[in-house]
């Protein structure tokens, strides 16, 4: 099932791959600057992740997606198992139990991989449905359950940001594949109707407080709001051309507490100015556009949905993260994919990239044994 031949090399999307590597390198130089004050510890680790990620991405692109489809459910179940396990054996960092420690040195965050598992599960659902959309709510019960379980489990950690990502990515796929207008309206009414009792009876005080702070960071000006203020100053002070590599005062004096992870984008904005920040945003734009393009060229629904899922994943992460860093959106713990420090998010993003590469590479296999629906 994995075979490298000339057709593979010819079909391999070198531009897309180069785009991804460019984003990674930009992220690495950024992390170097952000961690130089603390001994480059995170930078060195991220270099290892980069090598592993590039390898993972390449390997995934070699997998025949029919195999992926066959094992989509297995992967899903495995992921759910880890999400469940993390609640019991996970280690707590900053109030959330999101990590499973492996031998003390490496921790993985199963929720990052859950995004991919959900995308694959949805892809299989739509592929196995021959009638096609738009779908009614009753027909969507299975995929909604498949999304609801991980969202719920991640909320229990609690990790509002990642569960929101899973929800947004899934919603994008479902909407893209079509939902009946009536069902859509019904769903909207249902959600609105459920909000009231959930808010008033189901949620505990501290949970309400957390959500309110999420929506309005000025409620907690010393915590989340503090980051937002500092981040805006860092981004704005970069100006058009930036202060230069390792010259950002906000960065070097570590005024932004999470500048290596969630607020990494503020570092490039400060040190490389509008030019650097806009360049990065454009790279992400191209990356998403290419994934969409791959989706539109896909010969079957499975690979199409996978590509849409990956596009949605990059889209939402970029929008929510950059929105947060520039003070447009509330502070949510959402990393900028390929850019923020963190092995699990990096690896899962590279696997996602590999899936898109694979769809393009594997097109030659598709002819003949997949049915095209008109």
């Amino acid at each position, binding site marked *: 099932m994995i075979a490298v031949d000339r057709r593979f090399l010819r079909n391999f999307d070198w531009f897309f791959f180069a785009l991804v590597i460019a984003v990674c390198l930009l992220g690495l130089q950024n992390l170097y600057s952000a961690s130089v004050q603390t001994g480059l510890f995170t930078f060195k680790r991220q270099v290892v992740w980069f090598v592993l990620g590039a390898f993972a991405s390449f390997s995934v692109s070699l997998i025949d997606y029919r195999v992926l489809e066959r094992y989509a459910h297995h992967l899903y179940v495995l992921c759910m198992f880890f999400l469940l396990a993390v609640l019991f054996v996970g280690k707590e960092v900053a109030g959330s139990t999101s990590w499973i420690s492996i031998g003390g040195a490496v921790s993985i965050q199963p929720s990052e991989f859950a995004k991919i598992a959900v995308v694959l599960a949805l892809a299989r659902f739509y592929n196995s449905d021959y009638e096609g959309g738009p779908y009614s709510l009753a027909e969507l019960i299975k995929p909604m359950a498949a999304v609801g379980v991980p969202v719920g489990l991640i909320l229990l950690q609690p990790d509002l940001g990642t569960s929101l990502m899973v929800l947004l990515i899934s919603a994008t796929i479902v909407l*893209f594949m079509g939902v009946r207008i009536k069902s859509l309206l019904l769903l909207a009414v249902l959600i609105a109707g459920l909000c009231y009792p959930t808010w008033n009876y189901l949620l505990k005080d501290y949970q309400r407080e957390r959500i309110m702070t999420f929506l309005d960071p000025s409620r907690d000006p010393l915590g989340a709001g503090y980051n937002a203020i500092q981040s805006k*100053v860092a981004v704005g002070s970069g100006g058009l051309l930036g202060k230069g590599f390792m010259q950002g005062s906000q960065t070097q004096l570590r005024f932004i507490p999470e500048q290596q992870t969630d607020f990494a984008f503020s570092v490039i904005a400060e040190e490389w100015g509008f030019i650097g920040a806009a360049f990065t945003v454009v790279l992400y*734009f191209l990356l998403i556009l290419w994934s969409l393009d791959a989706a539109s060229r896909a010969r079957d629904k499975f690979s199409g949905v996978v590509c849409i899922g990956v596009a949605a994943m990059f889209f939402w992460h970029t929008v929510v993260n950059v929105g947060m860093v520039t*003070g447009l959106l509330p502070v949510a713990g959402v990393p900028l994919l390929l850019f923020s420090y963190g092995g699990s998010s990096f690896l899962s993003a590279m696997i996602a990239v590999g899936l898109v590469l694979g769809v393009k590479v594997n097109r030659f296999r598709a002819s003949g044994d997949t049915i095209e629906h008109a």
Partner: protein
Amino acid sequence: MRNYRPGFVIATVILFLVTSVLLSRLWYLQVIRGREFEKSSRINHITVLRFPAPRGRILDRKGREIVSNRKSFDVYVNIEHVRDLGGLAAELAAITGMEPVEIEATVQNVRGRGRFKPVLITKDISRDQLALIEPRRSTTLRGVEIKVNHLRRYPYGPLGAQVLGYLGRVTGRELEADPKLRSNDLVGKAGVEKAFEKFLKGVEGFVQKPIDVLGRQVTGSPFTEDLRRLPSTPGYDLVLSIDLDLQREAAAALGDRPGAVVVMKVKTAEVLALVSSPTYNPQDFVTGIDPKKWRSLVTDKSHPLFNRTTQGLYAPGSVFKIVTAAAALEEGIVKPDTMHFCPGYHIIGSSVFMCWKRSGHGWVDIREALVQSCDVFFYKVAERLGIDRLSVYIREFGFGSPTGIGIAEKQGIAPSRQWKMSAKKRPWFRGDTIVSAIGQGYVSATPLQVAMMTVAVANGGRVMKPRLVNKIVDRRGEVIVEYKNRVLRSLSVSKDTLELIRASLEGVVNDSRGTGRAARLDEVVVAGKTGTSQVVSNSVKKKLPEYRDHAWFTSFAPSGDPEISVTVLVEHGGTGGAVAGPVAGRVIEYYFRMKRVAKRDSR
């Protein structure tokens, strides 16, 4: 996926639009407002200065401060501004009396992670020391910062210490329970300081200050858009039901003997004084207690930290005869005129139960049995009554369950057949009933429980919830919470029975043969009951002080229309009438003298 064309068009359009929004936002922040932010980043980094809220005061019922706050000046060093740590440490050490090495080590220990933050060197320096440090902060002591904090102040020293409680550094578990706490916070650890923590605490204030790249504070900054400030909100004041004068008098009456005094207002069950002796000085806890002192307090055999009024469990002894008498009368075991003969002992099977008066009391009715505290009368009554009927009354009078005063308390033991089976895994014996009837054996109670029993009798059978805090007010005197009188239940004891008991208790103090004559006063009729509870059985030598009996006296006055109730326990004091009685008498006398003075003054 060709047939999804419209979807792809819409997705691409959305992608374009959103990307342009992000790019415009970057353009707005970095190019349009870039210069402004650039300036602010140079001189406008923000630091957050927190200032702790003064804790609420604790006042007595007349509004006198029992616990208030004073300012404390704490010394910090910010390594960023220090040029010569050795020199600074030597100079600071000379002023504060610390070791230079100690100061250097403290500063250097946190060098790695939190090095932008000032490090605490010492707390609560004197004003003289402050006067020495302050002028040198711009020269040789650059980097030294003085922060103002609030510390507890106890104008009356150890008075009422166990009721007030003390503060201590927050523990890990407390931190987990309340996300607003920080690791160095002081929280109430005992007494009302603990019970009313959430009212006393207040809300920490903060101000966000612009600082420059080097961490120096900037004044007159042009960029103050996002700066916030929140003044601290002082905690609420507690107005206790305690009367300081009475508390002081009760403490003085007890003196340095280990024991407890509970003074209650009968009608409202307000606690007027709650004395536990020996006591400790809460002043020692103010800046975080010295470990050596803490160990000595905890290991002290006389347990000064322990609030004997609510946490001390003692056999109630003869004061418990009030319960037995009520049960016997109510259940028809004895009538007011029933007589029993006391030869000085009572034999059941092969056991002999002695009366405290070896020569015997002769023929006595229930009134005389209470007045002279005849044990044999109650042995005989208990034999007929049985534990099952007796234990119902024991529980009804409040024994075996917490009183609900609000601070830490023990519930004691109200013995019954079921209790013994589950706690001791042994059946109930007849002898157990006999000793229970005179408050010995398994029965145990706190002085507060005995006081509540007395209040119930004085109050026409109403069992009340004791109240230690009258109200909670904010700094402007606005009432936040007001605590009302609460009747928990009414005893299922008739008026006649209560009247007979009341009259008997009056006899205890006023009859020529009463055991409580030492508490008699000329100006007011006192009613009470003595108790001498055994610590060990009669056969053991009673000469050793730790084996001597506990002395009890519980009383109310005026007997006809009770106003206050006083319960006294003197640990290993000897006989209740002789030892505890005069203490109660002195407190009651003081109360009515104070009342007369107040009346005269108001005229």
